[in-house]
């Protein structure tokens, strides 16, 4: 249905319906006004009919009387026109024209004045009773009969039918009015709804009128509508029918213009451009732009010029004030001039110095620590301010240098120490292994050797993690970012960890969206992040539970969530867990060194992502957030 109304045919039908119901409504309103005016609700139908007939008879009678007195009635006329039968009796009492029969019983009798001296009378007034009017005059008589059967279709028949219908409809008209109003409104609203919408998609594609600004359109269409009604109203012809037709066409045209206007406005409202697409808006917008431009230009002015401009304007105003409001202008102007002569150079000097200090502070703010403010020519407080800024710069560059050096040294130290530890550790692991392999009577020796191997392997892991943690947190790692499909991380991690999860009696549930989500990541670093998080899950999740690994797109971020139920109660805050060497289990009995999360977070951050931890009771959530790579 809606689709149909969006087609051209549907819109045309709606348009026509609007017009038709509009006309009906207007007509019924006008009719009801007439009905009230004519007392249709208090009088009988016959009474009303007689009044209408009376009016008609008056016109016909006048015409007949005029023609009779001017001898314009021929002998042939037998006193029957349509449903009307008539007879004119002269002042002498003889039948002058019309029906010759004198025995007819007449329904209506009217009189008109006749002057004996034969003066022409142009307008024959009809009277119901001559005596009341002016008994001294002589009167001719006109008799009428109206055929009650209304056999012939003349104006009396139409008048009777009209009165009959109006009388019958005098209450129904309100129902029609209401119906026309409701239906008209309904089609109007629907038309407004579908206007400008495409049939298939419902998309709004504006018509040619859309190009015209709303206020201009209102003006143009308003003028057109006024013309459509005004022109026929102005050129009234003699024929009332022609006038009515012209006026009707004019009003219809105006109505169509109004409907079209409403449709165009509806489209604008729907596109939310009603206000923006107006000449007024354009003008205001232009004015605003000009104002902003002028303001920006003023702000762009170098500070010295701003001061000059301000001081100049102020001085000018002062001058005007002195001239306008003082009696002894001469002395005051001289004094004023002297004051300015001293004050203005001081102000400009101040502005010049402040400008230099400003430049220095801006350079500092941008991180240029080598910038030194030239304090030559500065005096007193200005000089002190300049020197302070200079010492801030040198102090800060020193601090930054120190910081960098210490970071570098820390990483270097850890790398070197780890290298030096690894060499003896290699021997420890190997010889412990060899001891274990020696066939020995004392079983305990084999057992102790195993402990040695296990613990030295753990030490090796700790050293490696320590180096990585230190490098990751200082950003001392090379990161090669490439576009990756985030879903592939999940499938690959799931595949790599399947067996480990099975051994820990955990079930992995993965969910990812249909659409590919691409992010920038370094595969190797990302693997370490996943490795650490999945390892944690294997170590700390409650056996027999499910582990959820999900990927979804939230706004412009790819969000990967690891969810598992912790085996131990997590009596630790989220921030603390992220700290190095902090572990979920206070007893520190499980393997692991508490570096995993810290490394994972640093690596995620190095790749432009984020790792957050959420703890909700026993539910442990690790959330990786990476910005989605937008294609093209």
């Amino acid at each position, binding site marked *: 249905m809606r689709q149909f109304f969006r087609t051209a045919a549907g819109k045309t039908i709606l348009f026509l319906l609007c017009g038709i119901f509009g006309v009906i409504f207007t007509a019924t309103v006008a009719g009801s006004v007439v009905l009230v005016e004519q007392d249709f609700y208090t009088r009988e139908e016959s009474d009303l009919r007689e009044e209408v007939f009376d009016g008609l008879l008056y016109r016909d009678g006048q015409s007949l009387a005029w023609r009779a007195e001017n001898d314009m009635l021929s002998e042939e006329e037998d006193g029957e026109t349509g449903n009307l039968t008539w007879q004119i009796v002269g002042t002498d009492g003889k039948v002058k024209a019309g029906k010759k029969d004198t025995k007819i019983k007449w329904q209506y009798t009217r009189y008109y004045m006749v002057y004996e001296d034969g003066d022409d009378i142009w307008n024959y007034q009809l009277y119901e009773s001559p005596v009341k009017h002016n008994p001294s005059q002589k009167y001719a008589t006109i008799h009428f009969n109206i055929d009650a059967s209304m056999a012939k279709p003349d104006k009396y028949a139409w008048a009777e039918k009209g009165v009959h219908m109006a009388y019958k409809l005098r209450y129904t008209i309100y129902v029609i009015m209401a119906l026309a109003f409701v239906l008209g409104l309904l089609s109007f609203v629907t038309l407004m709804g579908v206007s400008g919408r495409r049939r298939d998609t419902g998309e709004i594609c504006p018509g040619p009128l859309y190009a015209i600004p709303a206020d201009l359109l209102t003006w143009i269409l308003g003028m057109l509508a006024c013309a459509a009604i005004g022109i026929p109203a102005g050129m009234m012809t003699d024929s009332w029918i022609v006038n009515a037709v012209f006026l009707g066409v004019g009003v219809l045209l105006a109505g169509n213009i109004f409907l079209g206007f409403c449709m165009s406005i509806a489209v604008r409202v729907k596109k939310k451009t009603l206000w923006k697409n107006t000449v007024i808006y354009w003008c205001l917008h232009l004015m605003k732009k000009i104002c902003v431009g002028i303001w920006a230009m003023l702000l762009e002015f170098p500070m010295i010029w701003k001061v000059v401009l301000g001081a100049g304007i102020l001085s000018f105003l002062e001058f005007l004030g002195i001239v306008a409001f003082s009696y002894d202008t001469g002395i005051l102007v001289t004094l004023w001039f002297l004051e300015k002569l001293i004050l203005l150079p001081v102000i400009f000097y101040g502005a010049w110095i402040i400008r230099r200090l400003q430049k220095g502070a801006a350079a500092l703010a941008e991180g240029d620590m080598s910038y030194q403010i030239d304090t030559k020519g500065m005096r007193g407080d200005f000089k002190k301010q300049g020197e302070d800024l200079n010492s801030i710069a040198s102090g800060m560059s020193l601090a930054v240098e120190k910081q960098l050096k210490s970071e570098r040294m820390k990483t270097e130290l850890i790398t070197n120490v780890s*290298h030096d530890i*690894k*060499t003896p*550790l*290699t*021997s*420890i*692991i*190997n*010889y412990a*292994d*060899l001891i274990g392999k020696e066939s020995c009577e004392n079983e305990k020796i084999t057992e102790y050797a195993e402990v040695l191997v296990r613990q*030295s*392997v753990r030490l*090796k892991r700790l050293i*490696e993690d320590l*180096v990585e943690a230190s490098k990751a947190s200082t950003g001392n790692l*090379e990161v090669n970012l*490439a576009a*990756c*499909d*985030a*879903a*592939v*991380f*999940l*499938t*690959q*991690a*799931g*595949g*790599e960890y*399947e*067996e480990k999860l099975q051994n820990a009696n955990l079930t992995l549930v*993965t*969910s*990812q969206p*249909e659409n590919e989500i691409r992010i920038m*990541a370094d*595969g*190797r670093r*990302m*693997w370490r992040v*996943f490795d650490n998080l999945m390892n944690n899950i294997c170590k700390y999740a409650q056996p027999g539970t499910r582990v959820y690994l999900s990927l979804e797109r939230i706004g412009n971020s790819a969000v990967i969530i690891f969810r598992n139920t912790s085996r131990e109660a997590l009596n630790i805050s989220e921030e603390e867990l992220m700290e190095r060497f902090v572990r979920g289990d206070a007893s520190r009995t499980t393997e692991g060194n508490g570096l995993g999360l810290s490394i994972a977070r640093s690596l995620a951050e190095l790749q432009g992502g984020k790792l957050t931890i959420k703890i909700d009771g026993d539910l442990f959530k690790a959330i990786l957030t990476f910005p989605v790579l937008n294609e093209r």
Partner: protein
Amino acid sequence: MPNILICDDEKDIVNALKIYLSDPDYQIYEAYNGKEAVELMEHTEIHLILMDIMMPQMDGITAMTKIREKSNIPIILLTAKSEDADKILGLNVGADDYITKPFHPLEVTARVRSQLRRYLKLGGGTQSSENYSVGGIELRDKEKEVYVDGTQITLTPKEFEILKLFLANPGKVFSPKEIYSQVWKEKPIGTDNTVAVHIRHIREKIEINPAEPRYLKVVFGQGYKLEKGREI
């Protein structure tokens, strides 16, 4: 009897390696710095070298460059540096493999055996429509057989197909979805990690240390690839 040269400034490590490798029929030679190794090479026929990088007098990289001028024998680097840059430098200069300290003894023996077998027996692989070979892996399509360093291994049909796909396109990265549609000939389902599991199984069968694969590598976030063999 293959001659193996072990070169490390740490005597204990040389000794330990000697114990591990003397078990089968290898002849072991020792050197305690790069210079000794180069000198020893001049009058002794050596078939494989295990060499540390950080050594006094002459470091491993320099020694290897010198040795490579005359010989193309397999060289395995032993290094405490786990920096990627060092590994890449070592491989570029002419190493055939590297082992990071501290190492697992079994891994060392496996890698030594693998390098020796390739050097002494296999030579370069032959590529034909039915036989594919990369590094120490050889796949015979007709017989449905796979050999790693001359030893036959058993693969399931799907694993065989996946490995064949990789061997036919060495160095190319395949995404899990591509592998699925090429091997299973079906449209892949989003959350399925069948491919990842199969790859892991293959890796366990063909790699000495599956956690640090030589051949079948995980390109995390992209897919998997078969490393082009470091042919001598």
